[in-house]
């Protein structure tokens, strides 16, 4: 029961953020990219809850609109690796043989590439932007899902219910999709929670380096970078965007733990 509570708390925190991001124009009345050069670097006031940045943009509204960008790309970037990794994991685990060993060699190679190095190299090829981030995360991310699902399939395929399904003469596709998949996917789903955090961290880091979502779009990483020069006077400019990431990470972590408990029941 206690761990179900963590699931609800995590979902509550993340849900609030998502709702705020979706209804951003209702939450804040400022445009996140509108500059007001008469009113730069103002402290928190009644009009600007978290003050304004160096270009006079409302920080609170940039934070909320930033949630749109970071959360959307964070989830999108995990979707493709999840699908690719789970399917390949299913197939390699089930069929084995040469197909399995060649995919596993590719897995070993991908693991040798530090993610950020590969991401930066890909940004170099495709140019900065959302597309490069998603391609980079997909190229690296599928590996984890593939290994998790493959390991589970190797165990599950020797279990009685699978033998029974085979004996009744069901086609392989049906066994894989309807019988095996629901039983091996749970660990992958739990992992995807922490994977979303990793992909948001990547978006933020690339944004900070100026290799991510192009400015002036409100994005937490570039907000940290833009706030850094004023860190002694306006410490919150660089601090609060980072806090947002920590909160998202905390919520997803709770959801992950809660899911584990739920699935184990």
């Amino acid at each position, binding site marked *: 029961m206690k761990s179900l509570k963590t699931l609800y708390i995590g979902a509550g925190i993340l849900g609030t953020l998502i709702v705020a991001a979706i209804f951003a124009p209702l939450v804040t009345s400022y445009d996140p990219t509108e500059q007001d050069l008469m009113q730069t670097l103002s402290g928190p006031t009644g009009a600007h809850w978290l003050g304004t940045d160096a270009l006079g943009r409302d920080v609170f509204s940039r934070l909320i609109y930033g949630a749109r960008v970071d959360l959307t790309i964070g989830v999108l970037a995990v979707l493709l690796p999840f699908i690719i990794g789970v399917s390949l994991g299913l197939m390699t685990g089930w069929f084995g043989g040469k197909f399995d060993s060649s995919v596993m*060699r*590719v897995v*070993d*190679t991908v*693991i*040798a*590439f*530090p*993610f*950020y*190095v*590969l*991401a*930066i*190299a890909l*940004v*170099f*090829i*495709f140019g900065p932007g959302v597309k490069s981030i998603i391609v980079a995360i997909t190229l690296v991310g599928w590996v984890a899902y593939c290994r998790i699902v493959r390991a589970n399939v190797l165990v599950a395929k020797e279990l009685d219910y699978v033998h029974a399904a085979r004996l009744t003469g069901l086609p392989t596709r049906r066994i894989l999709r309807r019988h095996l998949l629901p039983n091996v996917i749970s660990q992958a789903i739990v992992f995807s929670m*922490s994977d979303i*955090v990793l992909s948001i*961290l990547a978006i*933020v*880091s690339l944004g*900070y*380096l100026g*290799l991510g979502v192009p400015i002036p779009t409100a994005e*937490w*990483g570039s907000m*940290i*970078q833009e706030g*850094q020069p004023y*860190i*002694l006077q306006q*410490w919150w400019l*660089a*601090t609060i*965007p*980072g806090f947002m*990431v*920590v*909160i*998202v*990470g*905390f919520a*997803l*972590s*709770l959801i992950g733990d809660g899911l584990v408990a739920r699935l184990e029941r």
Partner: protein
Amino acid sequence: MLPVLFGISVAVFTIVHLIPGDPADVLLGQNATPARVKAINHQLGIDRPILIQYINFIKDLFHGSLGTSFDNKEPVAKLILGRLPETGMLLTGGIILSILIALPLSILAASKRGALRDQLVRAIPIIGLGMPQVWIGVMLILLLGLKFPLFPVSGFGDTFPQHLRSIFLPSLTIAILLSPILIRSLRASMLEILDSDYVLTARAKGISQTRITFVHVLRNAIIASVTVLGINVAYLVGSMVIVERVFVIPGTGSLMIDAIAKRDYPIVQGVTLYFALVVVVVNLITDLIHAALDPRVALK
């Protein structure tokens, strides 16, 4: 290991060939005329069949050559070697500090399961894993660099003591990044060790709790941390690139990011290859250390 090295070489080779358009256009920019593009393509060997290009690339690698930088015509291998001390010190510092943070906390947590201190330590990964590398760096600059100016916030210094002071904050950033991962697995393995038969035997023999913790349990916990570090070395090396940038440390990561701005692709290619090799070598070393520390592990 050989298939992995082959895979890495193919991947790095492909990176350059994925660049849209002619590399010569990138090189020449506004000054591109068909004749000059052709000359450059010949010079780079891009007009030859792709298999020949790959073989030449491998030949060059065996001669220790990673090509020459477009920007200042220096050999890429030399440029990377020149940045090694910075990156090496940062990596070592980060690993040492993360063990110094993670090991005592894990011992503390595992010593009394479910107690307040255990719950506090268990909360560290939940919070810590969500902290962006760049943000940890910026926060450390704010706290230990500017509010309380104890450490330099950028650069690498000129003398060895200055180097040590300069890499403290970046190393600490890496340690804060890495220790949540370490703590999570170390605490689990410590609990397992404390439950094991040989610890029970040691207790039955009347050996003090302190001695059990520091002699019997710690040794095995260190083995566990080496393994965890080995698994996460790719993440560690990648994060280092970003941390170097935050603290303006002129290491290999900065070399790569600067090269991107100048579209100097031999450097991007060289550094990518170099980092992948570092990961493979570090993995090999952790396997060897693991085997040396744990007699039950046999190297195949």
